[in-house]
């Protein structure tokens, strides 16, 4: 065997080991998710029972919804926020310098009037042009500010929020009416909780009545359905599993509840990153560990926020590119936490796994496929090795995706028809044959863009949901 062939074999073995470690890690996460779901499934049911946890003494919540050019969906989204069933809450919509009719629609629809009240500046952000309140909806506050992107808008909302807890939610998303009550279960059980994330689901294809999901149906398009599987995988076994290990590194920017003081003390949202959600969670971990403050960052399987996902390749590629840049940026910022025992499981398990399984995966997946094909062609590896590689890299990926659907069936069963779950299982298998490789390409481009210093948010095309 030539030296080149030996070298190729060595590389192939490394790639195979990578897939074994990563997919093995994910299989372990599935087990953790299963345990976590088993542990809390009944607690969630009890929480819904009349009498238990039925109180008017919950901490008040400020819901902050940053909006940028959301004229398609803003009224439906704000209505869904105003529809929340909760004893004490306020809704703060931050118009982040939209160039469309977002603000005028809000002013007209809710009869907003300027509010000159002084609000302290705990966190810095772009100048506020005007604050509005609504005589008709006393819980609604609209902030009109110069454009500064999502993190900046969230910081402005945080300064204006007056309640102990804040719920950050995308203005193009729709919350289920009892979502805050469900999230509060965690704050009610553990005083040290500073942040809680909940499940975000794909709204495309669902029907809505009075801004509430009436029927949970599958998206109509291929990309929509693939993303329905992706979201279930990311939330039901990814984050639920990490929560079980007390190693949660990310709470989706689309939906999360935070202790306002803890968030402000950690420094609020960071402006110059496109991965502000993960960056914030890591900073909160770091702050609390550095200052030796007991804390918990949790994720619960049930609460639901419905979001519209992009259904065209161009928008989706931009979104995934941005997510990958955000991941790279965050992991680089907190590189000192890697393998640092002072940060416990976050530094020793969570971050290294994210680096290996999320950041490096597009590179290894694509390069791996090319190298394996090339090596087989040139005789560096035999067909057995190539097939084992495919089994570990692709079929295990299928198992992971189908398992996410299984967890969905074991927990919420939000899809009314069993047919839909079986169709999604088909997409979970298909996802690994083509889409996953395209997705890896987008993420690889995201990595390269990060290295080039690209910090653009990228235009999102939305049709609007909840109408």
């Amino acid at each position, binding site marked *: 065997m030539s030296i080149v062939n030996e070298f190729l074999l060595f590389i192939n073995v490394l790639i195979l080991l990578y897939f074994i470690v990563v997919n093995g890690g994910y299989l372990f996460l599935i087990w953790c998710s299963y345990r976590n779901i088993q542990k809390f499934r009944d607690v969630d049911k009890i929480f819904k029972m009349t009498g238990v946890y039925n109180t008017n003494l919950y901490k008040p919540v400020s819901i902050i919804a940053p909006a940028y050019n959301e004229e398609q969906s803003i009224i439906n989204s704000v209505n869904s926020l105003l529809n929340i069933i909760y004893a004490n809450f306020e809704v703060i919509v931050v118009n982040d310098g939209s160039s469309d009719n977002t603000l005028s629609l809000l002013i007209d629809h809710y009869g907003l009037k300027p509010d000159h009240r002084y609000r302290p500046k705990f966190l810095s952000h772009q100048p506020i042009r005007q604050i509005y309140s609504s005589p008709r909806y006393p819980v609604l506050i609209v902030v009109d500010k110069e454009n500064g992107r999502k993190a900046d808008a969230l910081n402005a909302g945080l300064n204006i929020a007056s309640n102990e807890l804040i719920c950050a939610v995308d203005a193009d998303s729709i919350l289920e009416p009892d979502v805050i009550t469900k999230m509060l279960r965690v704050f009610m059980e553990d005083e040290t909780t500073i942040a809680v994330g909940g499940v975000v689901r794909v709204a495309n294809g669902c029907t809505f009545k009075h801004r509430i999901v009436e029927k949970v149906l599958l998206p109509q398009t291929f990309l929509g359905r693939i993303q329905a599987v992706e979201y279930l995988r990311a939330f039901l076994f990814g984050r639920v599993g990490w929560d079980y290990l007390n190693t949660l590194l990310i709470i989706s920017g689309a939906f999360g509840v935070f202790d306002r003081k803890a968030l402000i003390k950690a420094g609020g949202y960071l402006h110059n990153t496109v991965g502000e959600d993960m960056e914030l969670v890591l900073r909160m971990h770091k702050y609390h560990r550095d200052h030796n403050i007991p804390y918990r960052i949790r994720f619960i399987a049930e609460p639901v926020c419905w979001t519209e996902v992009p259904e065209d390749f161009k928008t989706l590629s931009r979104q995934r590119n941005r997510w990958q840049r955000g991941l790279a940026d965050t992991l680089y910022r907190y590189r000192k936490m890697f393998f640092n025992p002072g940060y416990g499981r976050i530094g020793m398990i969570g971050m290294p796994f994210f680096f290996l399984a999320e950041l490096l995966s597009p590179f290894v997946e694509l390069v791996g496929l090319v190298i394996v094909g090339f090596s087989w062609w040139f005789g560096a590896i035999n067909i057995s090795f190539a097939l084992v590689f495919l089994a570990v890299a692709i079929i295990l990926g299928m198992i992971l995706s189908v398992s996410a659907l299984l967890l969905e*069936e074991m927990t919420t069963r939000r899809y009314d028809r069993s047919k839909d779950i079986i169709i999604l299982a088909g997409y979970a298998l298909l996802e690994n044959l083509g889409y996953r490789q395209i997705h890896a390409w987008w993420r690889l481009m995201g990595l390269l863009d990060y290295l080039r210093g690209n910090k653009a948010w990228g235009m999102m095309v939305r049709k609007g949901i909840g109408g």
Partner: protein
Amino acid sequence: MSTVIDTYAVVIIFIVLLMLTAVVIILICFATIRRSFLAHREKQYQQAEEKVSDPLYAYLDDEIDLNAYSDVLQTRFEIEAAYQLVNILIDNVKGSQQKKLRSLLELPKFRRYFFARLRSRKIMHVAHACMYFSQKGLIDKNAIRRMFVLQDHPYNVILYASTLALVSTAESETQDEALKRFLRRRNNASMAINDIIFKYHSHQIDSARCAQVLLEAVKDVSIPDKNRAAVISMLPSLGFYHCSDDLMELLRSEVSQDRTGILTSALINVLKEFFYEGLEKEIVRQELWKSGFQQVRLEVVHFFSRLHDESYLSTLMDLAHDPDIEVRIAALKALMKIQKKVRIPDENFQADILPEWQEMKRSGEDYVDS
């Protein structure tokens, strides 16, 4: 390029494919068979509901007696359905009908069923049973003993449900003991404590006694400080203004032992709510604005803000340079109010604080939140 597949590869590929097949089959079973099973159970429950509802209305209309209704309840679905129905009706009827429903809950069939559930390993069953026993007026010695044991359950939700049931019983000793045991638990969240105290209070006939028990809890050093602080914070909402002297005494005596500041800040906050006269003097005596705890300094600033007293100008000016931003902003707001009486020159503020101060002045005092 070899095309011969060795045995190991075949075994690995076979195992992986087998795993995939197994997961897909399990998923299909879950999506079909389990769903059918759940639908069947739902149907059984509905049938049970239909079976027990007419006799229930007949019982309320005095057409059948308690024993006849008891005979209707044969299966667990029927017992559960009947319990749910009674639960819904009991809050919507009054007088004799409500009394009749309460006596229905005392049926041995219900008691036996839920007592068995108190011993279940499933937390859902236990919580359900606790809710049954928390129905006002239900006293069952065995159940009470069991629920005291459940107060040590590893799941907070069961601790909470059992405490709720115990504070809802008609015996005041049981209620007091349950509350104290609950408060001694270290990992209770303040929201849960507030809720339990609220419900404990709502089941008390003698308000003075209730206040006494809560005050004892506040003074009990075996209860964690954060739980004591949560009890203190509940006193104004329960209207226990007469507790202020005792709270003041606590502020005088215990502050030096307060290791987190949480107790002191709760005491200042509540005494401020009570407009307690001696509070100002005590804050000055102990110079609490110099406290090492942020929340204590913040409460002191809020208190000064309410006083509008220019004699605290220099203290507030110092607090406007506090390392904590929340204290700083609260101090600036308090200064805005004093500004009406005394002119405060801008030179008194450092460059980093000045913009906030200017912005506040621009907004005008009326628009500054207190």
